[in-house]
Protein backbone atom coordinates (compact mmCIF):
# COMPACT_ATOMS: atom_id res chain seq x y z
CA UNK A 1 0.00 0.00 0.00
CA UNK A 2 1.31 3.41 -0.92
CA UNK A 3 2.53 5.44 2.00
CA UNK A 4 0.50 8.44 0.85
CA UNK A 5 -2.69 6.60 1.82
CA UNK A 6 -1.69 6.86 5.44
CA UNK A 7 -1.25 10.61 5.10
CA UNK A 8 -4.60 10.91 3.36
CA UNK A 9 -6.38 8.96 6.05
CA UNK A 10 -4.71 11.03 8.73
CA UNK A 11 -5.57 14.39 7.12
CA UNK A 12 -9.18 13.44 6.56
CA UNK A 13 -9.49 12.15 10.09
CA UNK A 14 -8.05 15.33 11.57
CA UNK A 15 -10.34 17.48 9.44
CA UNK A 16 -13.37 15.53 10.56
CA UNK A 17 -12.23 15.61 14.15
CA UNK A 18 -12.01 19.37 13.86
CA UNK A 19 -15.66 19.64 12.97
CA UNK A 20 -16.52 18.38 16.42
CA UNK A 21 -14.93 21.40 17.99
CA UNK A 22 -16.16 24.17 15.77
CA UNK A 23 -19.21 26.05 16.81
CA UNK A 24 -21.99 24.78 14.65
CA UNK A 25 -24.37 27.22 13.08
CA UNK A 26 -26.69 24.83 11.33
CA UNK A 27 -29.82 26.26 12.82
CA UNK A 28 -32.88 27.97 11.52
CA UNK A 29 -32.19 31.46 10.29
CA UNK A 30 -31.19 33.68 13.18
CA UNK A 31 -29.66 37.09 13.31
CA UNK A 32 -26.30 37.57 14.95
CA UNK A 33 -26.21 38.37 18.66
CA UNK A 34 -24.75 41.83 18.18
CA UNK A 35 -27.48 42.68 15.68
CA UNK A 36 -30.05 41.39 18.14
CA UNK A 37 -28.77 43.55 20.98
CA UNK A 38 -28.75 46.61 18.77
CA UNK A 39 -32.36 46.02 17.78
CA UNK A 40 -33.41 45.20 21.33
CA UNK A 41 -32.19 48.60 22.47
CA UNK A 42 -34.24 50.51 19.91
CA UNK A 43 -37.54 51.76 21.29
CA UNK A 44 -39.16 51.77 17.84
CA UNK A 45 -40.96 48.51 18.45
CA UNK A 46 -43.31 49.98 21.04
CA UNK A 47 -46.74 51.18 20.08
CA UNK A 48 -49.26 52.76 22.41
CA UNK A 49 -52.71 51.50 23.25
CA UNK A 50 -54.14 54.58 21.55
CA UNK A 51 -52.47 53.70 18.27
CA UNK A 52 -53.74 50.15 18.47
CA UNK A 53 -57.24 51.33 19.34
CA UNK A 54 -57.24 53.74 16.42
CA UNK A 55 -56.21 51.06 13.99
CA UNK A 56 -58.77 48.65 15.36
CA UNK A 57 -61.51 51.22 14.96
CA UNK A 58 -60.39 51.96 11.44
CA UNK A 59 -60.37 48.21 10.76
CA UNK A 60 -56.89 48.43 9.39
CA UNK A 61 -56.49 45.17 7.45
CA UNK A 62 -52.74 45.13 7.91
CA UNK A 63 -52.97 44.97 11.69
CA UNK A 64 -52.69 41.61 13.36
CA UNK A 65 -52.96 41.42 17.12
CA UNK A 66 -51.17 38.53 18.75
CA UNK A 67 -51.88 37.57 22.33
CA UNK A 68 -48.80 35.84 23.75
CA UNK A 69 -50.37 34.90 27.08
CA UNK A 70 -51.19 31.28 27.88
CA UNK A 71 -54.32 29.91 26.23
CA UNK A 72 -56.28 29.82 29.50
CA UNK A 73 -55.96 33.57 29.95
CA UNK A 74 -56.74 34.18 26.32
CA UNK A 75 -59.96 32.24 26.65
CA UNK A 76 -61.10 34.46 29.47
CA UNK A 77 -60.53 37.73 27.70
CA UNK A 78 -58.54 39.12 24.84
CA UNK A 79 -58.53 42.15 22.62
CA UNK A 80 -60.84 42.16 19.60
CA UNK A 81 -59.72 39.88 16.79
CA UNK A 82 -56.57 38.88 18.58
CA UNK A 83 -54.96 35.54 17.81
CA UNK A 84 -53.47 33.52 20.61
CA UNK A 85 -49.87 32.41 20.14
CA UNK A 86 -48.49 31.43 23.56
CA UNK A 87 -44.83 32.11 23.93
CA UNK A 88 -43.70 28.50 23.68
CA UNK A 89 -45.50 28.00 20.39
CA UNK A 90 -43.65 30.94 18.87
CA UNK A 91 -40.84 28.60 18.01
CA UNK A 92 -43.06 26.05 16.32
CA UNK A 93 -43.88 26.27 12.61
CA UNK A 94 -47.59 26.59 13.36
CA UNK A 95 -47.03 29.64 15.54
CA UNK A 96 -44.68 31.25 13.08
CA UNK A 97 -47.21 31.32 10.29
CA UNK A 98 -48.53 34.62 11.59
CA UNK A 99 -45.21 36.38 11.42
CA UNK A 100 -43.10 37.69 8.63
CA UNK A 101 -45.96 38.16 6.19
CA UNK A 102 -45.32 41.10 3.94
CA UNK A 103 -47.79 43.92 4.40
CA UNK A 104 -48.84 42.98 7.92
CA UNK A 105 -47.91 44.64 11.12
CA UNK A 106 -47.98 42.27 14.03
CA UNK A 107 -48.66 43.79 17.42
CA UNK A 108 -47.80 41.59 20.36
CA UNK A 109 -49.40 42.09 23.72
CA UNK A 110 -49.70 40.41 27.10
CA UNK A 111 -50.93 41.52 30.51
CA UNK A 112 -48.07 43.96 30.66
CA UNK A 113 -45.53 44.62 27.99
CA UNK A 114 -42.95 42.30 29.52
CA UNK A 115 -44.02 38.96 28.09
CA UNK A 116 -44.81 40.53 24.75
CA UNK A 117 -41.41 42.17 24.76
CA UNK A 118 -39.74 38.84 25.45
CA UNK A 119 -41.72 37.29 22.62
CA UNK A 120 -40.51 40.11 20.42
CA UNK A 121 -36.90 39.37 21.32
CA UNK A 122 -37.39 35.73 20.40
CA UNK A 123 -39.01 36.66 17.10
CA UNK A 124 -36.26 39.10 16.32
CA UNK A 125 -33.68 36.43 17.02
CA UNK A 126 -35.50 34.30 14.47
CA UNK A 127 -35.09 37.23 12.05
CA UNK A 128 -38.76 38.23 11.85
CA UNK A 129 -39.39 41.86 11.08
CA UNK A 130 -42.36 44.21 11.34
CA UNK A 131 -43.38 43.09 14.81
CA UNK A 132 -44.44 45.56 17.48
CA UNK A 133 -45.13 45.48 21.18
CA UNK A 134 -48.12 47.22 22.73
CA UNK A 135 -46.86 49.24 25.63
CA UNK A 136 -48.73 48.64 28.84
CA UNK A 137 -50.39 45.48 27.62
CA UNK A 138 -54.01 44.73 28.54
CA UNK A 139 -53.58 46.41 31.91
CA UNK A 140 -52.67 49.55 30.07
CA UNK A 141 -55.51 49.01 27.65
CA UNK A 142 -57.97 48.89 30.50
CA UNK A 143 -56.52 51.97 32.13
CA UNK A 144 -56.41 54.06 29.00
CA UNK A 145 -59.09 52.88 26.62
CA UNK A 146 -61.74 51.20 28.74
CA UNK A 147 -61.50 53.42 31.82
CA UNK A 148 -59.85 56.61 30.66
CA UNK A 149 -59.10 59.14 33.37
CA UNK A 150 -60.21 62.65 32.84
CA UNK A 151 -57.21 64.98 32.64
CA UNK A 152 -56.80 67.71 35.17
CA UNK A 153 -58.09 71.18 34.40
CA UNK A 154 -54.59 72.45 33.83
CA UNK A 155 -53.69 69.77 31.33
CA UNK A 156 -52.82 70.86 27.80
CA UNK A 157 -55.31 70.76 24.98
CA UNK A 158 -53.88 67.57 23.52
CA UNK A 159 -54.62 65.67 26.71
CA UNK A 160 -58.28 66.56 26.40
CA UNK A 161 -58.32 65.55 22.78
CA UNK A 162 -56.82 62.23 23.72
CA UNK A 163 -59.40 61.84 26.45
CA UNK A 164 -62.18 62.49 23.97
CA UNK A 165 -60.74 59.90 21.64
CA UNK A 166 -60.45 57.37 24.44
CA UNK A 167 -64.01 57.93 25.55
CA UNK A 168 -65.24 57.38 22.02
CA UNK A 169 -63.01 54.34 21.68
CA UNK A 170 -64.39 52.99 24.92
CA UNK A 171 -67.89 53.38 23.51
CA UNK A 172 -66.76 51.55 20.43
CA UNK A 173 -65.13 48.64 22.20
CA UNK A 174 -67.77 48.14 24.84
CA UNK A 175 -71.13 49.54 23.86
CA UNK A 176 -71.06 50.16 20.17
CA UNK A 177 -69.91 46.69 19.52
CA UNK A 178 -73.16 45.19 20.66
CA UNK A 179 -75.22 47.20 18.23
CA UNK A 180 -73.12 45.88 15.41
CA UNK A 181 -73.11 42.22 16.23
CA UNK A 182 -75.92 41.44 13.83
CA UNK A 183 -73.78 42.40 10.92
CA UNK A 184 -70.76 40.58 12.26
CA UNK A 185 -68.66 43.50 11.23
CA UNK A 186 -65.94 42.77 13.70
CA UNK A 187 -64.62 40.06 11.50
CA UNK A 188 -61.55 41.43 9.93
CA UNK A 189 -60.46 39.67 6.85
CA UNK A 190 -56.78 39.74 6.37
CA UNK A 191 -55.37 38.61 3.10
CA UNK A 192 -51.77 37.75 3.58
CA UNK A 193 -49.40 37.75 0.77
CA UNK A 194 -47.16 34.79 0.79
CA UNK A 195 -43.81 35.22 2.28
CA UNK A 196 -41.17 35.37 -0.36
CA UNK A 197 -39.06 32.31 -0.46
CA UNK A 198 -35.99 33.83 -2.04
CA UNK A 199 -34.02 33.20 1.09
CA UNK A 200 -33.68 29.49 0.54
CA UNK A 201 -32.47 27.76 -2.56
CA UNK A 202 -34.95 25.75 -4.50
CA UNK A 203 -33.48 22.54 -5.65
CA UNK A 204 -33.76 18.90 -5.97
CA UNK A 205 -32.80 16.58 -8.62
Amino acid at each position, binding site marked *: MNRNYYF*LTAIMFVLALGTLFIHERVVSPQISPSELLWDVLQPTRFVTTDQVAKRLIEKDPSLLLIDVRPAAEYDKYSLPNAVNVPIDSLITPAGQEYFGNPGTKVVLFSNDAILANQAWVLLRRMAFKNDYVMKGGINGWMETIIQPKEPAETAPESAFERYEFRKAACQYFTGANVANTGKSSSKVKVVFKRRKKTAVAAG*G*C
Partner: protein
Amino acid sequence: METLPHQEKNKTKYINPYFGGVLMGIVLLVTIFISGRELGISGAVRDSVVATANVISPTAAKTSVYYGKFLKDGHHPMDNWLDYEVLGVILGGLLSGILFKRVHKPFVERGPNVSRTRRLVAAVIGGILFGFGTRLGRGCTSGAALSGSSTFAFGGVLVMVILFASAFAFAYFVRKLWI
Protein backbone atom coordinates in the same frame (compact mmCIF):
# COMPACT_ATOMS: atom_id res chain seq x y z
CA MET B 1 -3.17 -9.90 -21.12
CA GLU B 2 -5.19 -10.14 -24.31
CA THR B 3 -7.94 -7.69 -25.05
CA LEU B 4 -11.38 -9.18 -25.29
CA PRO B 5 -13.76 -7.86 -27.95
CA HIS B 6 -16.29 -6.54 -25.51
CA GLN B 7 -13.77 -4.46 -23.67
CA GLU B 8 -12.39 -1.09 -24.43
CA LYS B 9 -9.24 -1.10 -26.43
CA ASN B 10 -7.33 1.99 -25.50
CA LYS B 11 -5.21 1.64 -22.46
CA THR B 12 -5.60 4.82 -20.49
CA LYS B 13 -5.66 5.23 -16.80
CA TYR B 14 -8.56 6.50 -14.78
CA ILE B 15 -7.67 8.94 -12.07
CA ASN B 16 -7.21 7.67 -8.57
CA PRO B 17 -10.65 7.09 -7.07
CA TYR B 18 -9.87 9.13 -3.99
CA PHE B 19 -8.68 11.96 -6.19
CA GLY B 20 -11.98 11.75 -8.04
CA GLY B 21 -13.83 11.77 -4.77
CA VAL B 22 -12.04 14.80 -3.41
CA LEU B 23 -12.56 16.65 -6.70
CA MET B 24 -16.22 15.69 -6.74
CA GLY B 25 -16.59 16.90 -3.18
CA ILE B 26 -14.99 20.20 -4.09
CA VAL B 27 -17.23 20.60 -7.14
CA LEU B 28 -20.22 19.93 -4.91
CA LEU B 29 -19.01 22.42 -2.32
CA VAL B 30 -18.50 25.09 -4.96
CA THR B 31 -21.97 24.36 -6.34
CA ILE B 32 -23.53 24.77 -2.94
CA PHE B 33 -21.49 27.87 -2.27
CA ILE B 34 -22.51 29.52 -5.52
CA SER B 35 -26.10 28.47 -6.01
CA GLY B 36 -27.26 27.03 -2.70
CA ARG B 37 -28.52 23.98 -4.50
CA GLU B 38 -26.92 20.70 -5.33
CA LEU B 39 -25.92 18.63 -8.28
CA GLY B 40 -28.65 16.51 -9.74
CA ILE B 41 -29.47 14.76 -12.94
CA SER B 42 -32.87 13.13 -12.87
CA GLY B 43 -34.73 16.42 -12.45
CA ALA B 44 -33.41 17.46 -15.83
CA VAL B 45 -34.57 14.23 -17.41
CA ARG B 46 -37.98 14.88 -15.94
CA ASP B 47 -37.93 18.38 -17.39
CA SER B 48 -37.18 17.06 -20.83
CA VAL B 49 -39.97 14.49 -20.52
CA VAL B 50 -42.32 17.28 -19.53
CA ALA B 51 -41.10 19.44 -22.38
CA THR B 52 -41.53 16.59 -24.85
CA ALA B 53 -45.05 15.92 -23.62
CA ASN B 54 -45.76 19.61 -23.91
CA VAL B 55 -44.62 19.68 -27.52
CA ILE B 56 -46.51 16.56 -28.54
CA SER B 57 -49.77 17.48 -26.89
CA PRO B 58 -49.84 20.78 -25.02
CA THR B 59 -53.42 20.49 -23.83
CA ALA B 60 -53.06 16.95 -22.53
CA ALA B 61 -49.83 17.88 -20.77
CA LYS B 62 -51.37 20.88 -19.06
CA THR B 63 -54.30 18.88 -17.76
CA SER B 64 -52.16 15.95 -16.68
CA VAL B 65 -51.78 15.79 -12.91
CA TYR B 66 -48.03 15.32 -13.03
CA TYR B 67 -46.94 17.39 -16.02
CA GLY B 68 -49.32 20.14 -15.00
CA LYS B 69 -47.24 20.78 -11.89
CA PHE B 70 -44.31 21.87 -14.03
CA LEU B 71 -46.25 23.80 -16.64
CA LYS B 72 -48.16 26.12 -14.38
CA ASP B 73 -46.73 29.56 -14.75
CA GLY B 74 -45.92 29.65 -18.44
CA HIS B 75 -42.32 28.97 -17.59
CA HIS B 76 -40.59 26.81 -20.13
CA PRO B 77 -39.97 23.43 -18.49
CA MET B 78 -36.44 23.28 -19.82
CA ASP B 79 -35.51 26.67 -18.38
CA ASN B 80 -34.22 25.26 -15.14
CA TRP B 81 -30.88 25.41 -13.40
CA LEU B 82 -30.59 21.62 -13.48
CA ASP B 83 -30.95 21.43 -17.25
CA TYR B 84 -28.01 23.74 -17.76
CA GLU B 85 -26.04 21.70 -15.28
CA VAL B 86 -26.80 18.43 -17.06
CA LEU B 87 -25.72 19.99 -20.33
CA GLY B 88 -22.45 20.65 -18.54
CA VAL B 89 -22.23 17.05 -17.35
CA ILE B 90 -22.34 15.79 -20.91
CA LEU B 91 -19.77 18.35 -22.03
CA GLY B 92 -17.58 17.53 -19.05
CA GLY B 93 -17.73 13.82 -19.83
CA LEU B 94 -16.73 14.58 -23.38
CA LEU B 95 -13.90 16.83 -22.22
CA SER B 96 -12.54 14.13 -19.96
CA GLY B 97 -12.91 11.56 -22.74
CA ILE B 98 -10.94 13.76 -25.13
CA LEU B 99 -8.30 14.57 -22.56
CA PHE B 100 -7.69 10.95 -21.60
CA LYS B 101 -8.27 9.66 -25.16
CA ARG B 102 -11.27 7.58 -24.23
CA VAL B 103 -13.66 8.89 -26.87
CA HIS B 104 -14.23 6.11 -29.33
CA LYS B 105 -16.59 4.83 -31.94
CA PRO B 106 -19.95 3.92 -30.41
CA PHE B 107 -19.71 0.52 -28.83
CA VAL B 108 -21.40 -1.62 -26.22
CA GLU B 109 -19.55 -2.44 -23.08
CA ARG B 110 -20.73 -5.66 -21.49
CA GLY B 111 -19.82 -8.44 -19.15
CA PRO B 112 -17.86 -11.44 -20.50
CA ASN B 113 -20.82 -13.83 -20.55
CA VAL B 114 -23.54 -11.73 -22.04
CA SER B 115 -24.59 -10.95 -25.60
CA ARG B 116 -24.91 -7.46 -27.02
CA THR B 117 -28.68 -7.66 -27.32
CA ARG B 118 -29.09 -8.87 -23.77
CA ARG B 119 -26.88 -6.10 -22.48
CA LEU B 120 -28.88 -3.47 -24.32
CA VAL B 121 -32.22 -4.88 -23.20
CA ALA B 122 -30.91 -4.96 -19.64
CA ALA B 123 -29.76 -1.37 -19.98
CA VAL B 124 -33.19 -0.23 -21.10
CA ILE B 125 -34.93 -2.16 -18.32
CA GLY B 126 -32.49 -0.80 -15.78
CA GLY B 127 -33.07 2.68 -17.13
CA ILE B 128 -36.83 2.34 -16.89
CA LEU B 129 -36.64 1.10 -13.32
CA PHE B 130 -34.16 3.78 -12.37
CA GLY B 131 -36.20 6.50 -14.02
CA PHE B 132 -39.32 5.39 -12.22
CA GLY B 133 -37.44 5.14 -8.94
CA THR B 134 -35.93 8.61 -9.20
CA ARG B 135 -39.36 10.20 -9.15
CA LEU B 136 -40.43 8.27 -6.07
CA GLY B 137 -37.09 8.86 -4.37
CA ARG B 138 -37.01 12.58 -5.18
CA GLY B 139 -33.72 12.26 -6.93
CA CYS B 140 -31.09 9.96 -8.27
CA THR B 141 -27.74 8.85 -6.93
CA SER B 142 -26.23 12.27 -7.49
CA GLY B 143 -29.20 14.39 -6.53
CA ALA B 144 -30.55 12.51 -3.56
CA ALA B 145 -27.89 10.12 -2.35
CA LEU B 146 -24.70 12.11 -2.93
CA SER B 147 -25.89 15.70 -2.53
CA GLY B 148 -28.58 14.83 -0.03
CA SER B 149 -26.36 13.00 2.39
CA SER B 150 -23.57 15.55 1.95
CA THR B 151 -25.90 18.26 3.18
CA PHE B 152 -26.98 16.14 6.15
CA ALA B 153 -30.48 15.65 4.76
CA PHE B 154 -32.18 12.66 6.32
CA GLY B 155 -33.80 11.77 3.01
CA GLY B 156 -30.42 11.72 1.30
CA VAL B 157 -28.90 9.27 3.75
CA LEU B 158 -32.04 7.15 3.56
CA VAL B 159 -31.85 6.95 -0.24
CA MET B 160 -28.12 6.28 -0.18
CA VAL B 161 -28.32 3.41 2.29
CA ILE B 162 -31.34 1.74 0.75
CA LEU B 163 -30.15 2.21 -2.81
CA PHE B 164 -26.83 0.51 -2.17
CA ALA B 165 -28.40 -2.16 0.03
CA SER B 166 -31.00 -2.95 -2.60
CA ALA B 167 -28.39 -3.14 -5.33
CA PHE B 168 -26.25 -5.45 -3.19
CA ALA B 169 -29.22 -7.66 -2.38
CA PHE B 170 -30.26 -7.94 -5.97
CA ALA B 171 -26.77 -8.30 -7.42
CA TYR B 172 -26.70 -12.07 -6.99
CA PHE B 173 -29.70 -12.60 -9.27
CA VAL B 174 -28.22 -10.78 -12.22
CA ARG B 175 -24.61 -11.87 -11.81
CA LYS B 176 -24.66 -13.37 -15.33
CA LEU B 177 -24.78 -9.85 -16.70
CA TRP B 178 -21.52 -8.82 -15.14
CA ILE B 179 -19.26 -11.75 -14.25
